[in-house]
């Protein structure tokens, strides 16, 4: 079936380094993608989103890149901080859908070493 998946289950980086979290999706009809951050024991929090008519979108210290040719999504975090330690999920959806359903990947754990 169709799914959203992540390449690496755990990513360990040094504080101050840049982090790159990858995601592969298989539904070519998806036109909207979101990254969420989930801290231990809490609900996921929205980080950044991107529509399929864009290749790149930047936020505060975060950048999302979308490569529709290979169905790949990435989240780049600049100058990673200890507070960035969490599980990161990508999700895909359809902007024209009235249901608003999102399909989530399995998640990548980001560990920031001091």
């Amino acid at each position: 079936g169709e799914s959203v998946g992540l390449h690496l289950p755990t990513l360990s980086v040094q504080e101050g380094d840049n982090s790159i979290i990858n995601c592969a999706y298989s539904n070519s009809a998806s036109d909207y993608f979101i990254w969420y951050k989930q801290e231990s024991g809490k609900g996921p929090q929205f980080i950044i989103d991107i529509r399929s008519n864009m290749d790149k979108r930047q936020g505060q210290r975060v950048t999302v890149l979308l490569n529709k040719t290979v169905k790949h999504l990435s989240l780049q975090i600049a100058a990673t901080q200890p507070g960035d330690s969490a599980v990161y999920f990508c999700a895909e959806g359809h902007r024209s859908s009235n249901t608003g359903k999102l399909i989530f990947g399995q998640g990548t754990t980001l560990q920031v070493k001091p």
Partner: protein
Amino acid sequence: SQTIHQWPATLVQPVGSPLSLECTVEGTSNPNLYWYRQAAGRGLQLLFYSVGIGQISSEVPQNLSASRPQDRQFILSSKKLLLSDSGFYLCAWRESGSGANVLTFGAGSRLTVL
């Protein structure tokens, strides 16, 4: 501003007992509502969604049911819990209609079935 509440936050139940998890949203009208389940170390699986009062769509066959008795209230239930029902249950909402599908999640309810 809109807020979403889930309760109880944690729950330990014996196998075969009933379940009721509640979710309410404040500060909005006619939201789309969602129940997701997250098994330990896994991604989020969509269980149910609702686009209006009394309208429930089930995504996966299971031992659970959902109801929406009021516009901003979403309830997840079971008549007899199974061990496999253990997990972290997340309620989410978004504005109704099509468009960008950012879901806002509650803090979650952790269910342990013994």
